[in-house]
């Protein structure tokens, strides 16, 4: 039997066992996101406008990741708002970066895989490089936004009358902790994914000049840096949104009391 099939079944069973209903939802969310990426690829392949397709599919992927991840409406709404702002910023940034860095396509290191393939396919790979950057950060942004929103909403629930300065201090402390671990996750994820490429560079004794300029490696580094920036901005903006909402709510509470 197919090894991947068995592992998928193991994953599903584990998710149901550990997560119960939420586990089923999370598994379903993964399948939906896979489908979303599938549709994204087909639409880009049909030459729809890459920017519009990326924006729409990013929104769909983010909403699946966030709204299927938790039941708490306050948490998910804040996380979703945050992720949209962050992904918008990062998308603009990745367009700028792609303009200067030209990270598209393949290089001679890929010759073996490219054998027999037509390389004049009429699809602008510059756009695809931008799409790859945006898609790879979506998960990290959603995760960071969810983590900080969930933690802060618990703080607010435990002490609803907390002053905004004190809440702000809390966002900084909790934010710092999430930042450290989330950046580590992303860092190890990217590092792990690139072991073969790095070994290739070391084994063939690439000069240092290539380590800091080569397209393949720099594309990965840029993706990682954008992801880290995404995590940082998520924590920052989510904290800011929650503090602002808290101030508004307290003000409303005061006027409400006056009216009574």
């Amino acid at each position, binding site marked *: 039997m197919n*090894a991947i099939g068995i592992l998928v079944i193991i994953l599903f069973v584990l998710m149901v066992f550990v997560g119960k209903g939420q586990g089923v939802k999370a598994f379903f969310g993964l399948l939906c996101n896979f489908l979303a990426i599938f549709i994204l690829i087909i639409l880009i392949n049909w030459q729809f406008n890459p920017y519009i397709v990326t924006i729409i599919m990013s929104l769909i992927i983010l909403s699946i990741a966030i709204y299927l991840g938790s039941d708490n409406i306050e948490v998910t709404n804040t996380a979703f708002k945050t992720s949209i702002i962050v992904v918008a910023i990062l998308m603009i940034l990745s367009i700028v970066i792609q303009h200067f860095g030209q990270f598209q*396509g393949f290089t001679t290191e890929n010759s073996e895989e490219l054998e027999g393939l037509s390389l004049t396919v009429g699809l602008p790979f510059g756009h695809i490089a931008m799409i790859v950057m945006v898609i790879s950060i979506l998960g990290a942004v959603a995760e960071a936004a969810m983590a900080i929103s969930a933690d802060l909403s618990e703080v607010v629930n435990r002490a609803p009358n907390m002053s905004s300065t004190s809440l702000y201090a809390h966002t900084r402390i909790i934010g710092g902790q999430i930042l450290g671990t989330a950046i580590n996750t992303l860092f190890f994820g990217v590092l792990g994914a690139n072991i073969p490429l790095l070994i290739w560079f070391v084994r063939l004794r690439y000069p240092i000049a290539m380590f800091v300029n080569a397209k393949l490696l720099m594309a990965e580094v840029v993706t990682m840096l954008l992801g880290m920036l995404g995590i940082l901005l998520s924590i920052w903006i989510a904290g800011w949104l929650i503090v602002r909402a808290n101030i508004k709510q307290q003000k409303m509470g005061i006027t409400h009391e006056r009216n009574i």
Partner: protein
Amino acid sequence: MTFIKQTKKYIVVFLAVLFAWIFLRHDAFLYTNPVGQVTQVSSKRVQKITDEHNNSDIIMTQHLTIKLLNRNQSIKLTNNYAQSQIMTSKYRVGDQLLLEKIGTNMHILSLKRDATVGGLATLLIGLLLVYSKWRATSWLLFSLVLNVILFGLTLVINVQSKNVNVFLLFSVLAILLATGSLLLVLGKTLQMGITLLTTLITTAITIGILVLVLRLTNDAGVHFETMSYVTQLPVTLFMAQTIIGVLGAVMDEAADIVAMQFGMRRENATRQFSDYWHAGMSVGRDIMGTLINVLFMIFIAETMPMVFLMLRNGNNWTYIMDQIMNLGILQTVISGIGIVLAIPVTSALVGWIMSRKVSRL
């Protein structure tokens, strides 16, 4: 008032990025290879071609005038590129190029990207410093640098020695990376020890499951031969990739759960095993979905350029899923298993250790 202070900080970050960019645009003297800047481009459309799959593309020829920045001369080069820019690239005025001299001919090695990447890195570090305190940021950056050094050393050992056990080598690396990062973040505490222990146990079980399933099925449906940039046995390389990838996610999750459970103990030290177990499971449930998504997005996005190329080359989806996305999907699934397993392992381990402490008191 605070707003003005903040604005000042952002201006400093902006200036730092600008400075890094300008410096790296003028760092040609650091290179031994010739580095040039394109000063003039004349492009000409050569031909429109249609390949066997009915894709039409346009081939262009550029005549580039390049001023060498670390040699005192100017050269002229011709460059052909297809408009889709899959293997070939279009160059623009102002682009800096890394060149190589073979015989008497210069040829283009790569676009010089250090200014772009350096600028982005400076932006990240600058914003990190504005957001959190100097000390916290420097610890974080220090741990990243330390990890890169450890990782680099492992790669060199892997390449230099001929009959090293790759699997063992990267397992040792994983233990060192986990210990180093957690020590730097949490300090030498019981909390750190437990987090490290659960991280390592979970990673080991996950890899165990992977190896077991692969053995039982004889690698059915898994195409290790499709891995890119392979210079050694792909199976162990894949294991190494998985160990490192799973480690980060599991560490993140275990740290969250353990921190929460320690918070519980601070509130009330006489809790039972079941209290810790249920609390741990409930926190884990909330974060597992989004955490699996993080790795899923990274692994799938990585395969996308090749998927597009294969689609355009008239391959069907079954073949692409089987050949191109195969290892990406496997990587996601196995990481997912690790992330889910971390929840019961952490909850049980912490619960067991804590409740034993209570009964000893």
